[in-house]
């Protein structure tokens, strides 16, 4: 279905781009995603979303997908009396809960380090703001540890994925959201790069939300937690007593 949708949307993108030739639209970039809403249902095991678009003139594309920013606490273990214990912690503001990166060429060949940093391209270039009293020497370790853990959980992409071109104008890439993806408002930022400069950029919003029974359970658990607790007990008692009665005959 994605494949057919892609054809239609690419056609639409080409038609949309047509007026760019000689027109007043200096941006020269149009991008979109195959879905605006990723629904986490009971059967959700992760999903692909197609990101695509077209550029007016030859150049390169970098795509960054960010999840809603959060505060994260990172802890470091140390060995005490033979066992590993959390001994130190640092917390960071403005940490994207999800970070994904793709580019048509290695990013360091496309932009200078200063530009990469300014645009937040590459997880190591994200401006995590540290809170509390942690020595600057230690902070680097915590920052790297945070990214490593995020990569381990499948929520961060450090090595850029591919953006592939069809011809000189149409590009596409596929972003994967794993089953543990955080919910909220996502931003897909597409950069049109040429000669070591960002020519233009476009942001495509994307929402990841829980839908259906699972969503209702989650909302219920948080909105009326007392009632939820009582219901959880009632269900357990019912099933337990029911089973006790049934198996009496066995």
């Amino acid at each position, binding site marked *: 279905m994605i494949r057919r949708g892609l054809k239609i949307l690419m056609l639409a993108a080409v038609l949309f781009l047509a007026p760019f030739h000689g027109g007043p639209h200096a941006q020269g970039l149009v991008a979109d995603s195959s879905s605006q809403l990723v629904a986490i249902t009971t059967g959700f095991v992760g999903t692909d979303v197609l990101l695509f678009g077209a550029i007016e003139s030859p150049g390169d594309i970098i795509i960054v997908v960010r999840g809603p920013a959060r505060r994260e606490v990172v802890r470091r273990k140390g060995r005490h009396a033979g066992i590993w214990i959390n001994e130190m912690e640092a917390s960071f503001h403005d940490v994207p809960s999800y970070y994904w990166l793709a580019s048509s060429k290695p990013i360091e060949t496309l932009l200078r380090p200063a530009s990469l940093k300014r645009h937040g391209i590459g997880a190591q270039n994200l401006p995590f703001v540290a809170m509390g009293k942690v020595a600057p020497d230690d902070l680097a370790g915590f920052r790297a540890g*945070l990214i490593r853990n995020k990569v381990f959980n499948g929520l961060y992409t450090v090595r850029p994925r591919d953006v592939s071109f069809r011809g000189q104008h149409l590009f596409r890439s596929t972003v994967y959201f794993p089953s543990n993806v955080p919910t909220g408002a996502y931003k897909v930022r597409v950069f049109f790069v040429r000669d070591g400069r960002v020519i233009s950029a476009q942001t495509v919003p994307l929402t990841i939300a829980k839908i259906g029974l699972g969503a209702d359970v989650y909302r219920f658990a948080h909105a009326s937690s007392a009632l939820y607790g009582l219901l959880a007990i009632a269900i357990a008692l019912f099933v337990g007593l029911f089973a006790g009665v049934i198996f009496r005959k066995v």
Partner: protein
Amino acid sequence: MQIYLPIAEISLDVFLLLAMGGGVGFLSGLFGVGGGFLMTPLLIFIGVSPAIAVASEANQVVAASASGVLAHMRRGHVDFKMGSVLLAGGIVGSSLGVAIYSLLRSMGQLDLVISLSYVAFLGIIGSLMLGESVRAVRRRVRPGAPRRKLHQHTWLHGLPFKMRFRKSKLYISVILPLAIGFFVGILSAIMGVGGGFIIVPAMIYVLGMPTITVVGTSLFQIIFVTANVTFLQAFHNQTVDVVLALILLTGGVIGAQFGGLFAHRLPGEYLRLLLGAFVLFVGAMILFGLAVTPEDIYSIGTGPEL
């Protein structure tokens, strides 16, 4: 078939969860324990966060105990008076336990305390069981050995506020069962267990209750203590995953029935020997997990609520 667990926020295989529930249920039916002390480490092992595992497991133990208690009630093996006294201590203890749990979670030491509690209690209980059953097996082999008294009198029996428990044929201080209930209640909240593997030996060796009323009475009070833990965890921490609990208990109640059938075919001493060895093994595995160098010494944790 993968299913997305709404509170744990991960997808897990339904059949894996059912098999875990069934397997632990079988062992719990075989040995007459709740199985929480096995299920919680297993859940953590397959990727459920310890906070969610502990709270959801408490919810599952409610069902497991409820299904088990009926058979004991029909045979009249539940000492309701003793159960209620234990329960009174258990409610206070488990409420305190949930508060400690929330505090430890914000300090980043919850996982460590959960693991250490497991190592300590599985180690102690396992060793006691093993020692006791080895002695029992020896007695079985040499029938000439002297029988023990029904129960020994120690300083514990000199405590005030004595109460008569007819069903258990006891006249003891009410402080003892209250204290045991309180202590096990704390552990129940922190470790996500019913506490049967602690309260059963405590009832036999500390209170001196006759073995026949012990299991039914402990199941009776465990229902209410774990119900209290479930409610408080859901209310304060929103960590009870009903979907997870429901899948586990479906497998659990079925497994427990089969375990119960097998239990009658094996002699009690050997059964306890087996359980003791198994409990020690689980404890050793958890200790190993603490001692082995972690893959990454940095981890992302849950901070204090903002």
